[in-house]
């Protein structure tokens, strides 16, 4: 018999992205890059070029924001819901947009500068109510990486704020109130 060890926590975080207040969700085709690379729950995505004239496609965010993936492409918890690799197999994902309150592992742990030049990597300090943006690889971060990298698309969209900081008692998940 399987026994899931919840480690004594009273709020369950058995997935990459845990939703406390739900936004709008939509099942959509994902890009070949995402099919090849997979994704974690909470991954930021943006709309990509169509390959079929009437099929909207999402791809990894490169600093822009179209929403975030509710479920990762191959999460451990999928084994308990008969969903293993379902998204990759059927070429789709579930994107959430609008206002929600969620908790996720898909955020930048280290500063943009130190990720470029490190090690050593410099941890990002998150504070309650910090504005959040998409990093250049589509993770939540409080740094405007479009501006820091000199990208002509800068500044980054303000797409959320910190509702809970990562800490031991929440298994170092970042709480996010999404705005877009």
């Amino acid at each position, binding site marked *: 018999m399987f026994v899931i060890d919840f480690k004594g*926590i*009273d*709020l369950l975080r058995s997935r990459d992205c845990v939703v*406390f*207040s*739900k*936004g709008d969700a939509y099942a959509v085709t994902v890009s070949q890059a995402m099919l090849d690379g997979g994704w974690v729950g909470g991954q930021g995505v943006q709309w990509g070029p169509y390959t079929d004239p009437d099929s909207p496609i999402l791809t990894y965010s490169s600093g822009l924001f179209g929403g975030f993936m509710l479920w990762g492409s191959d999460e451990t918890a999928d084994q308990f819901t008969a969903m293993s690799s379902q998204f990759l197999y059927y070429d789709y994902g579930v994107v959430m947009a*609008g*206002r*929600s*309150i969620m908790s996720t592992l898909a955020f930048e742990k280290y500063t943009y500068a130190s990720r470029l030049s490190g090690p050593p990597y410099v941890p990002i300090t998150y*504070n*309650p*109510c910090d504005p959040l943006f998409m990093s250049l690889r589509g993770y939540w971060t409080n740094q405007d990486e479009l501006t820091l990298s000199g990208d002509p698309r800068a500044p980054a969209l303000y797409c959320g*704020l*910190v*509702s*809970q*900081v990562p*800490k031991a*008692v*929440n298994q170092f998940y970042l*709480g996010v*109130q999404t*705005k877009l």
Partner: protein
Amino acid sequence: MTLAPFDPDVRDRDVIVFSKGPSFTTQIDSVLKTQGWAGGQGVQWTDDPTSDTFIVTVSHGLPGGFLVWGSNESADQYISYTENQPTYSFATYCFGTWTISTRTYELYTLASRTAGPLVLNNYVVGEPLYFSLRGLFTNQDESGLGFVVGSVMQVPNGTLNLNYLGVSTQT
């Protein structure tokens, strides 16, 4: 019991909701629990390193949301709800886009509240709203942080809307 004359535009609570956005039940910090709050109070997220519960406190200009019900509104007496929220340390947190009417806003300018004599804020339909340094809706960016949390949907009018401020929220 004597009933007040019927008012077709009933405002018997601190916040009247015309269009509902998302909401979330959350814990309140000791400041809110101790001092109480009015419906429409602006709040921001705060942190307790020892707890995994989402917690809000009074906004000082940062965005977040507002609390739809006050901690001890007179209307609570009629629904067996008196002081329910502060007793159990929770509140109903509202964020996103709502259309509300509230009496929880800054009546006077920051400068006049600080130095006096009091000068009324003049609200204009469509202008941006912020949370004041004590978390009330205001048309002045008191914190200088520039976080817009909504816009004026209806201006206060003593005859027409009991001086409630109509707000289209955007948090």
